[in-house]
């Protein structure tokens, strides 16, 4: 099933010609409209006119999350704010989020890409889509939503949470496609079983799962428990949102990157050297058609490899393999990006808290639980239970308010969090995905 047969099956030569033309245009545009890019290009001694072939992209400097933070909130927008019709944000490394913007043409592009993604999962205008990705600043919910409408399907914008109600809606409305994080899919299955609802009696044909890493084993478990075909979707708000790449239901072996809109590269994270197809390294994207927030050689920090082999589905766009890790310490908790340093900045603002904390990540049932261990020093200690419990609640509440993720706070005795020279081991991830 393809939404845009012409573009999704473009012969490589035609595709690359389009990429080059669009690359030259976007490089010229950001040089003219975004001071950050002009400075970067000038410092590197590269001019837009130096881009004569796709390989010349390797001469252009990288863009990182730090650059976005330095230009917070709108410093890297390439159009006046009047032309920005949507703002989204995702987690930044400190208290401030990463902010992105969209013009109405960007929204149209994004919707087209998400329609392609849904179609890759077999969806058509006749489908009813149960969209349990979070709606709000997060790009997941609205990304799928606009894609579904563009496809012509009937979207149920149920967002996350209220699981029992979601199961009731599934049983009553009969959706045929499920979109949510893979761990939430398993959680839905668990709660449904408790409610006596069998997924074999529901009408789901397929599900499109992403926003967090998941394994082949999890795919088999999801397919078995939810009685549907499970495919992987990938994206990041800096590059667009969900819909940067998606698995085809025909092969389920690697995610097709929509190369008419993004140029992917795999680099050595230490040296920045571009690696050949098949090599594993850090994934880098250049957007070709975004107007409000173009990104040039954006380092995703995701580790993967590219697979240029022709695919049985007929799409000519290169596939990326499952993301196998990160080059930084970012965590994904129930689909939400969390940087340990963000938690640190929240804790530092609470005066009773010592600068010794640790994060423990577990997966209980199918949901991620993040426990923040905080040492109780004399400054924080009280003889009253209520005071300490209020401190625990305050820490959890502040983290929830700033980061949007619910955590459990546990007070521990002093010196129980191991000190180490150099980088402290802040995170213990017990999950085995």
């Amino acid at each position, binding site marked *: 099933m393809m939404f845009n047969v012409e573009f999704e099956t473009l012969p490589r030569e035609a595709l690359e010609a389009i990429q080059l033309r669009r690359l030259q245009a976007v490089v010229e545009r950001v040089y003219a409209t975004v001071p950050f890019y002009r400075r970067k290009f000038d410092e590197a001694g590269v001019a837009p006119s130096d881009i004569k072939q796709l390989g010349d992209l390797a001469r252009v400097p990288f863009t990182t999350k730090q650059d976005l933070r330095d230009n917070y909130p709108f410093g890297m927008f390439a159009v006046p704010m009047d032309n920005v019709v949507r703002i989204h944000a995702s987690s930044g490394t400190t208290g401030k989020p990463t902010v992105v913007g969209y013009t109405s043409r960007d929204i149209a592009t994004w919707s087209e890409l998400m329609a392609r993604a849904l179609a890759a999962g077999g969806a058509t205008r006749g489908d009813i889509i149960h969209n349990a990705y979070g709606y709000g600043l997060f790009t997941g919910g609205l990304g799928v939503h606009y894609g579904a409408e563009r496809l012509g399907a009937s979207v149920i914008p149920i967002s996350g949470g209220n699981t029992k109600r979601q199961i009731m809606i599934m049983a009553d409305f009969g959706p045929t496609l499920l979109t949510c994080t893979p761990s939430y899919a398993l959680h839905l299955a668990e709660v449904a079983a408790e409610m006596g609802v069998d997924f074999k009696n529901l009408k789901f044909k397929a599900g499109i799962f992403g926003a967090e890493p998941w394994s082949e084993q999890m795919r088999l478990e999801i397919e078995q428990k939810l009685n549907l075909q499970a495919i992987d979707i990938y994206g990041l708000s800096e590059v667009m949102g969900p819909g940067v790449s998606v698995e085809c239901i025909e092969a389920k072996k690697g995610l097709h990157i929509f190369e008419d809109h993004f140029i992917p590269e795999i680099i050595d994270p230490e040296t920045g050297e571009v690696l050949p197809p098949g090599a594993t390294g850090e994934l880098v994207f250049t957007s070709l058609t975004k107007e409000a927030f173009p990104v040039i050689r954006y380092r995703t920090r995701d580790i993967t490899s590219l697979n240029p082999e022709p695919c049985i589905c007929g799409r000519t766009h290169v596939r990326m393999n499952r993301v196998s890790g990160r080059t930084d310490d970012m965590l994904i908790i129930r689909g939400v990006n969390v940087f340990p340093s963000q938690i640190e900045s929240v804790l530092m603002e609470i005066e009773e808290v010592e600068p010794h904390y640790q994060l423990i990540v577990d997966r209980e049932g199918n949901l991620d639980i993040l426990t923040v261990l905080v040492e*109780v*020093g*004399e400054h924080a*200690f*009280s*003889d*009253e*239970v209520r005071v*300490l*419990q209020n401190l*625990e609640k305050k820490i959890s509440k502040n983290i929830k308010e700033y980061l949007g993720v619910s955590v459990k706070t*546990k*007070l*521990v*005795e*002093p*010196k*129980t969090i191991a000190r180490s020279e150099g980088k402290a081991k802040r995170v213990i991830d017990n999950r085995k995905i």
Partner: protein
Amino acid sequence: MRVEQISVFLENKAGRLAEVARILSEAGVNIRALSLADTSDFGILRLIVNDNARAKEALKRQGFTVGKTDVVAVEVEDRPGGLFKILDILHRADVNVEYMYAFVQQSGSNAVIIFRFDNLDEAVKVLQANGVTVIEGERLYAM
């Protein structure tokens, strides 16, 4: 009229309480009264000991978080209604009890109860005005 109580933060891990007892025993400190408040994650051990300074030092040296709180030791008639009389006096004066626990030793024929009040000075004033005996710290540690 204040009594110094030592409070210790304990994680709900096996052996923490025994560890505290061991440290105090090795330091030659005698526990006169104790109460343990617990939640699912942690506990607060409250102690009246015979040598506050030594106890605090020994515990802190072993890495425990130790606090100090002023509480009040009250003589309570050791018969039905004894406690109610005290609590009634406090209630009428609008003094709140945060927590309380018994002391090991009797004072003459009276029981002794340790109280933590939200307003210590007011509590002592009201109790004494109603003829209730409040035991001084120095006397209590040596009882």
